């Protein structure tokens, strides 16, 4: 009995060989329990060792293996081959990012934007260790927990048409993480973050397409986070008009 197989159509970009990308078809075994990552590793081990792609934990927590599978941003370790059988399965690098090689994209732009929103606890004055820990109730944790689940896989950026059309958009993950820290009771950095979060290139670029939240593998709901920041931005405007002297 012949083993079942499935065809992968893989985006290839090897700048030392060709200036333009191409697609290459490979036939790999089809196994019920295989994910796209397994197929790619089989491809690399047994067929073409030159194929390049990122991966690490293979269980959906590291955020390394994001790529386009049949036009949808997926974690390759979470996309089962049986969802696509009989195929073919089109595998491309994550959309809206420059391609370095094969399925590997440059993440520099995101890294810059992530740093810009200051995704860490900011205190006006650091509490000395001798004063003990910061205490937080379960309810206070629940406020921001959802937004802390982000694994920086960038599927949301690949799904966002605004980011595709306007690369200076700060983007879903960075803004969701800014929101996570703004909601954290230990944090006192909301005012500092406002210069970035309430800027023209940040929340106000978002037109609430909502696809970012649809593709997010960790249910972070960046779209919701951004809309809540818009409401906060509108409130900030009202406060600045009614109470121009104050700054929190």
């Amino acid at each position: 009995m012949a083993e079942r197989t499935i065809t992968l159509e893989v985006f290839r970009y090897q700048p030392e060989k060709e200036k333009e990308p191409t697609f290459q078809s490979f036939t790999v075994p089809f196994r019920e329990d295989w994910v796209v990552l397994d197929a790619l590793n089989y491809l690399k081990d047994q067929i073409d060792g030159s194929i390049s792609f990122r991966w690490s934990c293979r269980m959906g927590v590291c955020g390394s293996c994001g790529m386009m599978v049949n036009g949808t941003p997926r974690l390759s370790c979470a996309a089962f081959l049986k969802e696509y059988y009989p195929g073919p399965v089109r595998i491309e690098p994550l959309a809206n990012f420059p391609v370095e090689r094969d399925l590997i994209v440059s993440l520099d732009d995101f890294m810059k934007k992530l740093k810009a929103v200051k995704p860490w606890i900011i205190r006006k004055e650091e509490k000395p260790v001798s004063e003990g820990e910061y205490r937080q109730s379960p309810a206070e944790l629940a406020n921001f927990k959802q937004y802390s689940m982000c694994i920086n896989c960038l599927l949301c950026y690949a799904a966002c048409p605004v980011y595709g059309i306007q690369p200076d958009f700060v983007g879903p993950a960075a803004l969701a993480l800014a929101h996570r820290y703004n909601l954290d009771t230990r944090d006192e950095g909301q005012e500092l973050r406002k210069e970035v979060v309430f800027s023209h290139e940040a929340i106000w670029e978002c037109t609430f397409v909502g696809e970012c939240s649809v593709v997010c593998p960790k249910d972070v709901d960046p779209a919701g986070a951004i809309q809540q920041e818009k409401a906060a931005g509108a409130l900030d405007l009202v406060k600045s008009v009614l109470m121009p002297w104050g700054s929190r």
Partner: protein
Amino acid sequence: MSYRRPIASNWWMAKPNYLLFMFRELTAVFVWLYLIFYLCQLSQLGKDAGTYTTFLAGRSSLLWMLFHLMALVAAIYHSVTWFNLTPKVIVVRRGEEKIPDGLIVGPHYAGWLGLSLAIIFIALWS
């Protein structure tokens, strides 16, 4: 030497969700057109009864009915998508739990129904 893939100008046709998003945004065109046409109708209301009757007769043509039906569908799509998204912006917590989305969306729909009925009542029977 990194390669930038170009974005197609018809990107919004590539996925059903993108298409629905475009429809949602384009309801704004229908709403705007309706409001302008209604404004013209209002300005005619101020003229004498004969002029207004003639004007209104024009508005009862098939083409105008078709426009208003399409505008009605567009306006309802705007309302439904608008109300359904309110829980994303309005977050109410009770202890560790978020209150169910229905408790945010429900009152909006109830308000919509109530207001619409009240306005119809006023227009027809007050």
